[in-house]
């Protein structure tokens, strides 16, 4: 049972890190539907570097770096070129899926390094995740930078005439977003399940993406949602641990996706939009051009 809880926490933190990145990007108005792709890059390159050099630190740094670069590219496409963010995001996922499969397949198999030691019985990423949630919330709600980020996501024209550099801020946010997604991928491949395999992420990035909508763009709700999804995911892997004999693991495995689908459908209803709609950054997904 204790193992089940710690594993659930580990899984939750991967969702948290990736979704937190997406949340930061979205609050600045940039939608990146390719979270899965960024995570795949981070995970695969982090895995290869860690295995080759034998250093976890280098592995994680590589993941953060590659995530940042992809975030920057996505931002450049969306902000500088004013491209369609969904197209770019889908591109990231497709390229990520294909390229990491190609690069990673020679490394198929276990990482073969000593496990990262636990701190107070849980993985250190639990503390990293919670701390980052706290920092993100504080920056967004309590600082001038956060107000600027939120304003850019709500109405970039307003931010512009208030003397804020819209493009620069959005690029910054999306780069940080990519770094967090890359890190999330590496936490999966180096800590949670240190084995490289074909399509090992199995849609975690998409759940993280949905989680952002689910969270109403609030970092604390996001943490709550991530804990919920992480637990459900873990449950789907070994349901017999908690509820012996109830449904097969394959049915349990669909639960996070079903919950996500239902949540997203509910959120797209007029009822929801009139009641809660104000939470969505109004300029989300829209390129900003000076008029």
């Amino acid at each position: 049972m204790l193992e089940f809880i710690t594993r659930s926490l580990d899984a939750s933190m991967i969702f948290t890190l990736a979704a937190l990145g997406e949340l930061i990007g979205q609050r600045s108005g940039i939608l990146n539907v390719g979270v899965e792709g960024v995570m795949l890059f981070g995970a695969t390159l982090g895995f290869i570097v860690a295995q080759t050099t034998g250093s976890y630190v280098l592995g994680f740094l590589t993941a953060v770096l590659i995530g940042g670069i992809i975030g920057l590219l996505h931002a450049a496409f969306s902000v500088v070129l004013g491209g369609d963010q969904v197209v770019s995001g889908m591109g990231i996922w497709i390229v990520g899926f294909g390229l990491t499969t190609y690069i990673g397949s020679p490394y198929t198999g276990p990482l073969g390094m000593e496990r990262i030691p636990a701190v107070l019985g849980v993985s250190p990423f639990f503390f990293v995740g919670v701390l980052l949630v706290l920092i993100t919330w504080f920056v967004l709600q309590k600082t001038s930078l956060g107000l600027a980020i939120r304003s850019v996501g709500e109405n970039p024209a307003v931010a512009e005439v208030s003397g804020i550099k819209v493009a620069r801020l959005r690029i910054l946010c999306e780069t940080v977003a990519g770094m967090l997604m890359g890190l999330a991928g590496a936490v999966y491949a180096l800590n949670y399940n240190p084995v490289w395999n074909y399509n090992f992420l199995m849609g975690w990035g998409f759940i993280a993406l949905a989680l952002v909508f689910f969270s109403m763009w609030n970092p604390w709700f996001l943490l709550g949602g991530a804990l919920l999804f992480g637990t459900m995911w873990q449950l789907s892997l070994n349901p017999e641990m908690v509820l012996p004999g109830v449904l097969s693991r394959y049915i349990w495995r669909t639960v996070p996706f079903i919950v996500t689908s239902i949540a997203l459908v509910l959120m797209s209803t007029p009822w929801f939009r009139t009641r809660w709609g104000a939470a969505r950054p109004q300029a989300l997904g829209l390129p900003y051009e000076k008029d």
Partner: protein
Amino acid sequence: MTQEEKSQPVLSARGITKRFPGVVANDGIDFDIRPGEIHAILGENGAGKTTLMNILFGLYQPDEGEIYIHGEKVEFKSPLDAIEHGIGMVHQHRKLVEAHTVLENIVLGHPHAGTILNLRRAEQEVRKLCEEYGFKVDFRAKVWQLSEGEKQMVEILKALYRGAKILILDEPTSALTPVETRLLLDSVQAMAKKDLAIVPFITHKLPIVLEISDRVTVLRKGKVVARLETRHATEKSLAREMVGRDVLFRVERQEVEPGKPVLEVEDLVVQSDKGFLAVEGVSFTIREGEIFGLAGVSGNGQQELVEALAGLRKPVSGRIVLDGVDVTHLPPLERWKTGLGYIPADRIHMGSIGDFTLVENVLLNYYFDQEYNRGGILDYRKARQMTEQLIEEFNVATPGPDVLGRNLSGGNLQKVILARVLSRRPRLVIADLPSQGLDVGATEFVRNKLVEAKVNGAAVLLISEDLDEILDISDWVAPIYEGRFMGIVPAAEAEREKIGVMMAGYNAEGVAQ
């Protein structure tokens, strides 16, 4: 500030020129403004006001010309540069984040807001400004909860808080109620007394220019055509400079004997998109030869009422009778066939299709007529002939009927929409904000056409935020406030002050409803 400083311009622009492909938007514009002065810039749409404003605020860079602040040459690469040189801008389309609070909007981008936001200090400082100039606004309210007048106040406060010495006001009184306009003009004068320089950019409201400004610069086609002291100007002289010809100010109102009722509305209740009741039980009748003016600030249920009448929104309850036929549950097309003519407020998105030619745009109101539709096949040749005729009759400036809708200016597009609606000789014309955003000439044209329709026996429902427009041509005036009529007043008794008060939610006796 010494007398000498006061007589020196705080800002001067010299030879500002800005070209866009195919057009010189600003052509060698000179003007200056002194502290404590109210210097209005007047011009029709397309005269280059917006371009000049954007240059002064650093959104555009001029191709030629210089800007001086206190005699020193400056270059604005972005709004930030302009703000840092003491320029504040109050936009016509408010630049505020609707989901944020008033205070968050005011401190956004302020260099001394603190890395960690110090909203309490900001609140104290802004409160002081409020006391100084007589503003009242709830700092904790979200902007979307505010009225237009309050939003404008927030923009002014934001500019003042950033230390603006020169305040640019874009169409400051559009969308304000008469009461709010009064408040604004008072605070503008209070600001001028404190040596702020104020530059209102105005298209329509000439009386306001005459009332508050010290000097006027008139732009036409990108050039300065007149520069005068306001005390030497009259409404007529300003309009002549703006348009380049004499303008009839008052559209001739024509009295006709009203005929049978055309539109009868009984106890109509309509819901808004957000789920609350936007129209709460209105009843009225419009007869042949009458213009019924609906006066109100936007967002008081006009939109929902019009949509219900046009068949675009299902009413919750009530009855709509058009020309003796109960159309309450009929779809829009049946209503058109019964004699409805609808001129939507949003001429670009609802009134026309930008990628359609004028012929196709005209067909949008004719495609269902047997004359143009033979068993589903459209008679384009005939439609083209009609369009050509309408272009001539309605004076549309266009190279021909095959031009795309989006290539027309707002005024010409409105003429096309007017032409296709009125040429059907509808029994009821719903004209929703028909002259919004049009210049003096086009406005005059639109109003004349509505009067002509009335004289020809149509019933006209005119929705406008411009009280003068309503008072000029309506036979009945119904001020609407939060979904209810505050009364239905015959034109002879509709005094400006009285209607203005009713628009703010009081009945004809001045009792709050």
